[in-house]
């Protein structure tokens, strides 16, 4: 990553200003032109540092219910189980972790009923017996920020 790419990435991660020319404002903060900001973002995208550039929405504020689910899956069965889970539209994160509870996924649905229905369905389809649903009771911090030095 070039110095300019690092500077732009640190700045735009906080969110672009909601004004007529947001990249002009970003450029002013960094002492570069609007075009340089845009070119740098294009370059960051082409180098595959950016998954998506867009709105980050707090879906819970729209009434969506979510939970974190942990599963103990037999090592030899992990491919099959993980693939079943990833197919669900309400699953945004599905990670293998180095623990006895080795598969962790987030599930978001439009209602509590739908959420529980989907968990039941996943239990039946995967035939995994040890499964914990761990809905959040309090959020202290949700702020993804990677500082590039």
């Amino acid at each position, binding site marked *: 990553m070039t110095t300019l790419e690092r500077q732009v*990435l640190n700045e735009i991660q906080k969110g*672009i200003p909601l004004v007529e020319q947001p990249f002009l404002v970003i450029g002013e903060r960094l002492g570069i032109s609007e075009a340089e900001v*845009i070119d740098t973002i294009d370059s960051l995208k082409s180098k595959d540092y950016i*998954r998506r550039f867009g*709105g980050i929405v*707090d879906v819970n504020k729209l009434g969506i219910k979510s939970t974190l689910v942990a599963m103990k899956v037999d090592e030899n069965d992990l491919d099959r189980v993980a693939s079943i889970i990833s197919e669900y539209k309400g699953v945004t994160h599905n990670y293998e972790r180095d623990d006895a*509870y080795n598969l962790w996924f987030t599930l978001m649905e439009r209602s509590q009923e739908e959420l529980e229905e989907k968990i039941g369905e996943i239990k039946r389809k995967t035939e995994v017996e040890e499964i914990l649903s761990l809905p959040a009771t309090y959020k202290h911090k949700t702020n993804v920020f990677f500082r590039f030095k």
Partner: protein
Amino acid sequence: MIDMIDRRILLEISDDLNIHEDIFGEISGRVGISKDELLNRLTRMQNEGILKRISPVIKHYNAGYVANAMVVWDIEDNERQMIEKLAKSNENISHVYERERRENWPYNLYTMIHGQNAEEVTHIVDELSRKIGNKAYRILYTKKQWKKTSPDMKYYLSAE
């Protein structure tokens, strides 16, 4: 609360946006409202906490953050404020959630910690542990990302 126009806006900005000088002009054109109205609505939704921000979602693994762990803690009530304060001031900690304990899983606090290597992560955990005087934690490193995506707004916001 959001109306139909807000829904259309949220659907539009949930895509990967084209980056150019008139980014908001393009979006307002697609929604069929003026740019002023779009900016007013975005600002309102941001104030209401519905829209956190418009920003890139970083592929942090590609960008050098290769050690990522969920660290779970069994904390006492009197440690909550301390944890909150420490986590908020640490840029390497992205998420701090409380969740209920379970019979075989005594952890009630979840922290997502990102580092450029495993030492950086363990250093952060050690420091947190020392400051709050709590050693009841467990580090679960990411082994494989089977799926990582943003919420599919079409799935949630389509007509009921």
